[in-house]
């Protein structure tokens, strides 16, 4: 239930979590904001120093605990603030993507992209496209399966 005057929000949002690197993509999302590029509101952004900081298990954890979609965004390859963190991210996340079906998770619910601090427009189109994609998939079935599985929800990784 929403916190605002006790009513549900007017549009049914889905739960999308974004992990954004501080230097490029978080800045890109800021640039989109400064430019007033309107976007769907579903996404909640978690700031990380580098896409290389995103443990693939964060993504799995989120999707298995009921997130409808997870988006990871970092600096473009060869343009990482930490010189090669995003290259590690690319390798890890690509493997994760291929592994998701094994866990019974639709791989379309996860995406990783590259957005630089100046690419506000690219951020807007990426968020909009990903949100639309998740809405097309609908709410995650993981919730029904896992809702009462206290171990998965409360337990650590």
């Amino acid at each position: 239930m929403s916190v605002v005057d006790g009513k549900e929000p007017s549009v049914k949002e889905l739960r999308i979590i974004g992990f954004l690197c501080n230097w490029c993509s978080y800045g890109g999302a800021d640039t989109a904001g400064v430019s007033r590029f309107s976007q769907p509101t579903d996404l909640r952004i978690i700031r990380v120093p580098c896409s290389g900081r995103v443990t693939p298990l964060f993504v799995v954890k989120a999707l298995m605990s009921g997130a409808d979609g997870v988006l990871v965004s970092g600096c473009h390859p060869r343009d990482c603030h930490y010189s090669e963190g995003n290259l590690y991210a690319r390798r890890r996340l690509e493997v994760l993507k291929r592994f998701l079906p094994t866990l019974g998770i639709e791989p379309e619910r996860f995406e990783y992209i590259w957005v630089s601090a100046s690419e506000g427009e690219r951020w807007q189109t990426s968020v909009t496209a990903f949100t639309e994609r998740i809405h097309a998939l609908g709410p995650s079935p993981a919730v029904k399966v896992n809702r009462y599985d206290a171990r998965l929800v409360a337990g650590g990784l």
Partner: protein
Amino acid sequence: MRIGVFVCHCGTNIAGTVDCAAVAAAAQQFPEVVLAVDTPYACSEPGQRAIIEAIEQKGLNGVVVASCTPRMHEATFRRTVERAGLNRYMFEMANIREHVSWVGRDKKLNTFKATDLVRIAVEKLRYNRPLTAKSFAVNKRVLVIGAGVAGIQAALDCADGGLETIVVERTSTVGGKMAKLDKTFPTVDCSVCVLGPKMVDLAQHRKIKLYAMSEIADLSGYVGNFEVSIRRKATYVDWNKCTGCGLCADKCPSRKAPDHFNELVGRTTAISIPFPQAIPKKASIDASSCLHFLKDRCGVCAKVCPVEAIDFEQQDEVVKESVGAVVVATGFDLLDIRRFGQYGGGRFPDVVTSLQYERMLSASGPTGGHLKCPSDGREPKSVVFISCVGSRDRSMDRAICSGFCCMYTAKQAILTKSHVPDCETHVFYMDIRAPGKGYDEFIRRAQEEYRTNYVRGRVSSVYPKNGRLAVRGADTLLGTQTEVMADLVVLAVGAGAAEGSRDLAEKLRISYDAYGFFMESHPKLKPVETNTAGVFLAGACQGPKDIPASVAMGSAAAGKVMALFSKERLESDPQVAQVNAVRCVGCLKCLRTCPFGAIQEVQARDGSTKAQVIESVCQGCGVCTVTCTDRAIELQHFTDNQLLAEVNYLCRSWMEKSPA
């Protein structure tokens, strides 16, 4: 924990589309939150005072501010909580402006989202721990890369400020592009006469060490303690002996070497000194044109050199220097003229770049300052200038304006008239951009006093006709096509990033934009800083700029370096990785993964192998944390627990809200 939440209205920037009072009311119910209020401007003086008072009166030991992006004010609020006696890392920000109020249209949804973002900030803060910065000594020497006018200015200001300054220049002389110019706008004073004394100062300053014909091979370390490897390229002349007498160049039989200083207008000798005012005034051999290297004979220079400075066996040499800060002033390069086939670039010898034209006008240039067509040496009676060649041209993905072409084109039109008074001058332009001091007046002079024919329109083609060049284009003011006959066509070719700048950016770990120009830390408030602490920018490497702007930026960068060096010790960012030695099994995967070499192998007291973080080298990316299979290495302030607290709340809230 006692957490205080401050929800900023930012005037109407946030409050216009987010119900800030409702967000604060909701936050009041969050775990461990003892105070949640909304405030008109959290960053203002009264806003910050309210936070300090709340910390003192309510005994807060953690603060969340929901306002703009942390990239804007995180540092501000960290200082605020520190003034109230809290550790600066017991603070979190929720970005409800750039990520909420400015991008979402529905106030209800925005309020909902803002509340969530405040909540995850609270969840993370509950796991925050006070962190303390360590301090380290600063090496008060500065490295300046590139010795054009911006680099020269930065180096002289640093050296005058008492700093030991290392200057690395890629070519055999300092001076950069400005040394190639004939005159400068809007004063039409001799470029090298203005610059020359500064070049001499640079060479003679006792605090400055100059490496010409040298490049940056590698840079490691961090602010205050960089280690730089400089590759000194072989010149085949011992510069310790060379007196710059020029006898070798006079006698050199190979006169077909490309003359880079003269922008390939004309040829030079295989051993040469680029121009009379060159600093250092030393000869160097172009091995690709030298008969000794090509055919293993000649050696005339070695015979005539009075001081026996010629050394055909010389090799590249790498020297190391330690510095505490770096000023990058590598300038720009013009785009390749051959990309502009429609204007005859690279096809017709009488189509030249603006910089080639500067050399043709210059008294120290290949024609001795006599204007001559490169094709047959005749004096031109009509010169056409085409502006915006490769600038503001979306068809080649270059939307940028080079900024200085309008001005130098007007200057060259004026100079053309002073060289050949009866020569016609025509300028094809799109718009005239002359916003500097005395600039628009200068354009007027070119048009009125020097009778330059300004045609507003683009040129469609340049083609040979009756032994001259026909320039066809549109005259958009008259609404017609127009064709002008020219003896010489000068292209105001757009400025691009200097050759090799992307490689350099990777060595320095700074970013560059779509055109290859280096990115400043903030477009307005941090124009000379980069995102790598201790690396500063000066001049056209950040984007095309004219001489006054380059000089100003050189001085600005020097000022930044001196401010940095005004402290004896610097504080390191404590947001670094830390090894839990109990969990570490010594696999050293982290050591192999770390992009900065910030992890070393150590022996524990029981003789087992452990990883250890070198805190002053760690940059805090967290790549190691993900690599570690035993959760033994954690990035402080971004630990698994902190990030999972955010994930867990978001998923849990969803499940609670979703219908059964």
